[in-house]
């Protein structure tokens, strides 16, 4: 084996290797590196978004927890109010029942009084015309003669003549 050939061969091999390296590097930088950067940037964005989402979820969780707490408090308050209402409703029902009984009693008494009034009214309706009729017959008989009737008229005339 020739030493020169070996050196030249090594030199060209190294040159080839250098050219190949530069070419590969150029290719790497030209085609692969930009995609990788884009992916890294995308990944970073995703990470940022996810971090933001995490923060948002965290805040939402806080709000939900707070809401749950509020609702629990509200349920407690409503339960107390409901109990109060139930008590009030029972009291109102009791009073209503009592009033109803009193009203029924009053109505019954009123109906009895009205029945009595109606009976009395019916009696009066029949009795008054009969009484008036009897009175009329009696008075007609009393004034049947000319004497009493004329005296009555004379009294009336005297009465009005005096301007009374």
């Amino acid at each position: 084996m020739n030493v020169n050939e070996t050196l030249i061969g090594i030199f060209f091999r190294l040159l080839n290797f250098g050219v190949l390296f530069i070419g590969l590097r150029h290719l790497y930088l030209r085609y692969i590196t930009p995609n990788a950067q884009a992916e890294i940037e995308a990944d970073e964005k995703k990470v940022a978004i996810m971090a933001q989402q995490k923060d948002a979820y965290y805040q939402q969780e806080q709000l939900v927890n707070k809401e749950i707490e509020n609702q629990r408090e509200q349920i407690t308050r409503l339960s107390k109010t409901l109990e109060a209402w139930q008590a009030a409703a029972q009291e109102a029902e009791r009073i209503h029942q009592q009033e109803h009984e009193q009203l029924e009693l009053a109505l019954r008494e009123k109906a009895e009084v009205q029945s009595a009034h109606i009976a009395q009214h019916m009696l009066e309706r029949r009795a008054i015309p009969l009484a008036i009729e009897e009175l009329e017959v009696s008075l007609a008989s009393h004034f049947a003669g000319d004497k009493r009737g004329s005296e009555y008229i004379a009294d009336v005339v005297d009465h009005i003549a005096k301007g009374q």
Partner: protein
Amino acid sequence: MEYQIRLSRKYAQAVMNVFGQSISRDDIAHVQEIINFLGEHKKALFFLRLSRIDLAVKERALDKLFENFSNKKPFIALVHLLLQESRGHLIYGALRELVALYYETHKIMACEITGSHSISAESLDKVQQFLARQTGNDIIYTYTHDASLIAGIRAQSKTILWEHSIRKQLRDLALHMASEG
């Protein structure tokens, strides 16, 4: 009917405007008698609607109604005017309105006094004076008997009703008891 009354009143008003001063109360009393007669014999006016009877015949027939009047001129004028305008059938209404206008003008009120029993002329005069005092009008009256009053007197005109009788007292008593009951 309402139209006829209005028309009759216009004729009566015309006569009053022209002859009002010369019409006496006696004449009005006679007119009232004629009205009463025509009211009871309305069929007597039927011939006034017949065109076949001459106007002169109708005038002579109606003139006879007023022949006893001291001053028949206003009434004859009214009759002739109505006949000339073919409204002879309005004579009854026109005379009634004439009497009403005369009464209004001279503040006279026509009353019907009703008694349960016979009333002396003196008593009727007292009632007449009483009504005159109460109404401020001269009162002329007709008397009728009505036994349904039982005992007492009633005076009634177009605008007033005054009654003092047993019948009224019974009526008031019935009303009072009905309202009390």
